[in-house]
C-alpha cells in the first residue's frame, strides 16, 4: 500500500526520526534560536557553540515534530559542525532549493559531500505540504546565526 513512500521515508530518515542525533540542550551555547511551525505544531530549540574564528564547534537541538522535521534537524546538526557561519548559510540555501525542487544545480561545486548527506530528504519536494517540515531546522539555524550571544531568536517556517 505504501511502497512508493519509501522515496520520502528512506531508512536513514526513519532512523534519524526515531533516534535524532545531537538531541540535547547545549549549556553555555553561544547562539540559540527557537523554531516554530505554527500550522502543524512542530517546535524546536537549536543551540550552537562557536569557535573564536567563527566556526560552528558544536550544534544540538531539542524539540518535537514529525519524522521529517526531526530527521532534518538531526542531519543538519551533524552536517554543519566544523563549518563557518557563511558555509552553514550556503548549505541552508542549497538545502531549501533541494527540498523544494528535488534537485541541486550547485551541488557539484564545493560542499558536495555535505549536500550528499542531506540528499535523502530531497523526496519531500513531491509533498508541498511537507516541505516546511524539512526546512524548519534550517530557518532556525539562520535565525541563530543572525543572533547575538544570550539572545534567543525566533524562526518560523510559515
Amino acid at each position, binding site marked *: 500500500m505504501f511502497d*512508493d513512500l519509501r522515496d520520502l521515508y528512506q531508512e536513514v530518515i526513519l532512523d534519524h526520526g526515531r533516534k535524532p542525533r545531537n538531541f540535547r540542550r547545549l549549556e553555555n551555547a553561544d547562539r540559540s534560536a527557537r523554531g516554530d511551525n505554527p500550522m*502543524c505544531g512542530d517546535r524546536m530549540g537549536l543551540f550552537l557553540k562557536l569557535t573564536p574564528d567563527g566556526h560552528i564547534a558544536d550544534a544540538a537541538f531539542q524539540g518535537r*515534530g514529525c519524522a*521529517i522535521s526531526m530527521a532534518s534537524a538531526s542531519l543538519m546538526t551533524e552536517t554543519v559542525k566544523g563549518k563557518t557561519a557563511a558555509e552553514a548559510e550556503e548549505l541552508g540555501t542549497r538545502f531549501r532549493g533541494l527540498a523544494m525542487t528535488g534537485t541541486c544545480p550547485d551541488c557539484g561545486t564545493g560542499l558536495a559531500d555535505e549536500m550528499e548527506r542531506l540528499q535523502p530528504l530531497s523526496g519531500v519536494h513531491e*509533498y508541498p505540504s511537507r516541505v516546511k517540515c524539512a526546512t524548519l531546522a534550517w530557518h532556525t539555524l539562520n535565525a541563530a546565526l543572525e543572533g547575538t550571544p544570550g539572545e534567543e531568536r525566533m524562526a518560523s517556517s510559515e
Partner: protein
Amino acid sequence: MDGPILSAGFDVARIRQDFPILSQTVRGKPLVFLDSGASAQKPRQMIEAMVRCMETAYANVHRGAYHLSEQATEAYEAARAAVARFLNAADPREIIFTGSSTMAINLVAHSYGRGVLRPGQAVVVSEMEHHANLVPWQMLRDDTGIELRFCRVTDAGELDLEDLAAKLADGKVGLVAVTHMSNVLGTVTPAQRITAMAHAAGAKVLLDGSQAAVHRQVDVQAIGADFYAFTGHKLYGPTGIGVLWARLEHQERMPPFMGGGDMISLVTQERSEWAPPPAKFEAGTPPIIEAVGLHAAIDYVTAIGMPALEAHERQLVDHAMRRLSDIEGLTLLGRAQDRGGVFAFALDNAHPHDLSTLLDRAGIAVRAGRHCAEPLHARFGLEAGTCRASFGLYTTEQEVDYLADALTKAREFFT
C-alpha cells in the same frame, strides 16, 4: 472499493452520485474523503442552484425597484425562512446571515459581549472549544475585564456538568458559550440541560453548532438557548456564509457589529439610526449567491431527512468504533456516550503528519494537527496533535474499513 453498503432507507450509492467530486481518483486510488468535518463536499443540486441564481436571477438585494433585484431579494429572504425552518426558529427575523460560524460568534462576542455584558460578569467556555469559540472570548476578556472560565471535559471527552454547575454557582456568569458537538472528540453535548442550568443561574447560552447542525436535527426552541451558530460549507453548502440564530429580544438590546449600508434606517452627517433586526446586523452586500446555495443544501439534507441521516451516521460510528478500537497502538480521543462521526486518533509510532502523508498515498483524506483545538489536545497530553477522520452523509462502511486497514499497515510501515 466495491459498491457501498446500503443502510435501511438510506441509499448511499445514490447519494454519492450527487457529489461529482467523489468519483475522483487520488494518486491512482479512489478518493476516500474523510475530512468533511473541516469542510464537506458539495452536491450537484446545490452547485446548480448557485449557478442558476447567477445565470438567471442575480442582482443586489434590498435595493433595486426592478424585477431582478426583487427576484434576488425574494430568494435571499426565502433562504432565511428555510434556515429558520431548519432550526425550528420561531421567526425568520431571528436568522442573521454572516460570513461563517466564526463571524457569527465574533458578532455575539462584540455586540452582546461589549454591548450587554458588563465588567464583573463572566463568560464560560469549555475545554473542548474550537478556537472560533475561544479566541473571541479571550479578546473580550482582554478588552473589557470580563472573566473567562473554562468548564472541564471528562477523560471520556464529555462536558463535566458538575464543573459547569460549580462555574455557574456565584451567579456572575452572563453567558455560557459552548460547542454543541466537538470537532475533535465527536461528543454531542447535552444542549438542553446546559441551557437549563445556565438559565437557572441567570446566564444566556450560545451554542456553536458548526458540527452539530450537520449531524443532528437541531430544534432551537426545544433546546431553549439564546444564540446558535453554524456554517454553510460544512452542511454541504458553499463557503462564505454562516448563520447566527439570535432571539429577537437579544438582537434588540445589542448594538450593531459592523456599520455600513443596509443596516441603517436613517443616516445624516451627524448620526444614523439602526434598521430593525436582523438587518441591523447585516451591513453591506450580503452573501446572496451563498444564501441561495445554503438554501439548496438545506433542501438537500431535509429531503433525505435528518433522522435518516442520523441513523446512517450511527451505524458508521458504531462500525468505526469497533474497527478503530481493534488497531494495536492506536489511541482514540474521546469516548462519549452521545457522539457523532468525528474520530481523532494517534498512532504510537507515527507523528500525525507522517501518518496523514501515508494515508494520502492510499487516497484517504484526513486532517492532521490540532484541528483548531489546541487547549483540548493539551488537556489530553497530545501536544503533537492527532489525525482526524470525519464523516459525511456520503461516507460508507467500506471507507471506514479501508481506513482501518491502512492504519494497520501504516503502523507496520513505521515499525
